[in-house]
């Protein structure tokens, strides 16, 4: 590999240059002495202007943008992952498939394709607890959990999840016994991880839909356990 310092500086300068253009939430510095249609400083207007440009150039299709937003706002989210978890709890054969080849198992629901982007599911047990993080950016299993919450992408979570995972989950209200091994998965490559939480006690009579309703996003990231059904027997 040969990234020269010049390559690096060129890239850095280009992007830093972009960063030096009027800050998104700062007032527009009126430094241009010639007349032109200056870019607005307000992010709403600025993004609108960019969208208009890209649509006008035929680079993006506005209906595709609407469809993408609608998909991630309404169609793809933690309910997907919850259905996968519920089936794994209800069907031991499915669970083994899920742990061995998550793509294959999730293709049953149409969430992933066998040939597509890769996913891995890691199982919580009475002796092992798993926690997912992306220390370098924000990698997250979109297909089953949707887009990540702000805290997952934040510096406090990304920095400490690897060095003090027990302290981090404690902030979420999860106290792990000293005898439980904590396995942290840092998503540094194009594998996306999801936790298969432990099935709570008192759920033996529940069907798959009822089980899925108990499963939370936080449990599938590993910062929480799945609580038993409220009012149900512990």
């Amino acid at each position, binding site marked *: 590999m040969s990234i020269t310092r010049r390559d690096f500086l060129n890239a850095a300068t280009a992007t830093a240059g972009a960063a030096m253009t009027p800050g998104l939430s700062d007032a527009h510095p009126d430094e241009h002495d010639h007349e032109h249609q200056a870019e607005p400083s307000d992010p709403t207007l600025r993004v609108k202007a960019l969208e208009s440009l890209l649509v006008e150039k035929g680079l993006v299709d506005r209906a595709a943008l609407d469809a993408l937003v609608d998909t991630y706002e309404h169609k793809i989210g933690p309910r997907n992952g919850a259905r996968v978890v519920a089936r794994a709890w209800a069907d031991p054969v499915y669970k083994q498939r899920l742990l061995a080849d998550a793509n294959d198992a999730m293709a049953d629901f149409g969430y992933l394709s066998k040939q597509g982007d890769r996913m891995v599911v890691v199982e919580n047990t009475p002796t092992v607890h798993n926690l997912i993080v992306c220390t370098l950016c924000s990698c997250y299993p979109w297909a089953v959990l949707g887009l990540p919450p702000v805290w997952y992408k934040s*510096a406090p979570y990304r920095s400490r999840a690897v060095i003090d995972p027990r302290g981090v989950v404690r902030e979420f209200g999860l106290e792990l016994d000293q005898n439980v091994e904590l396995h942290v998965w840092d998503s540094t490559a194009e594998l996306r991880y999801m936790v298969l939480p432990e099935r709570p006690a008192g759920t033996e009579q529940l069907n798959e839909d009822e089980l899925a309703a108990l499963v939370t996003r936080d449990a599938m990231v590993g910062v929480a356990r799945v609580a038993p059904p409220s009012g149900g027997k512990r």
Partner: protein
Amino acid sequence: MNGIHDMGGMQDMGPVEYEKNEPVFHAAWEARVFAMMLAAGAWRKWNLDAFRHTREVLPPADYLRLSYYEQWLLGLRDLLVRRGLVTAAELENGAPAPGTAKATPPLTADKVPATLPTRIHANRDIPMSPRFQVGQRVRARNINPLGHTRLPRYARGKFGTIDRDHGVFVFPDTNAHFLGENPQHVYSVCFPARELWGASAAEKDCVYVDMWDDYLDPA
């Protein structure tokens, strides 16, 4: 690049701030930036590694100050210009240069569902021998490249064990700079917490880091 983005193991960044019933997007413009990045990405003029690197080269103070989608917007603008889809003048004027032919968008609404499962598009179905076997003891290389890398600082020089082989993927250190895909095996490498953080870490805890062949040496 030893940038601010490589924050695994840093301390004193404050408590994790949890928002109850958090919306997917906090403003309409965030959703549009998100969608534009995916739709423009369908031109395949750049890749996910190149996009990540646009955030990494933000000045550290800006990286910490800007919101997530503000970073995306800057990255999108940078890639659009650098990869030739838009000129700097067009960005500034908010209109296509006179006489520009209108393109046909590669991603239309009907194609959206089918494209999502291969959005990342980084695994390669190429038969290649892995350099390491499951169970093998390895040491992460101590490299400090100025460009993009996915080998986090906290793991460099540390000893671990190959836990599983995920198959062949493009290599981010070259791919991010359009210097070739350089496909190679990726493994989950198990690093004991005490190897990474010393005796105060819990004895049986560990951190799994995904590593490419070129990040590892036999140990």
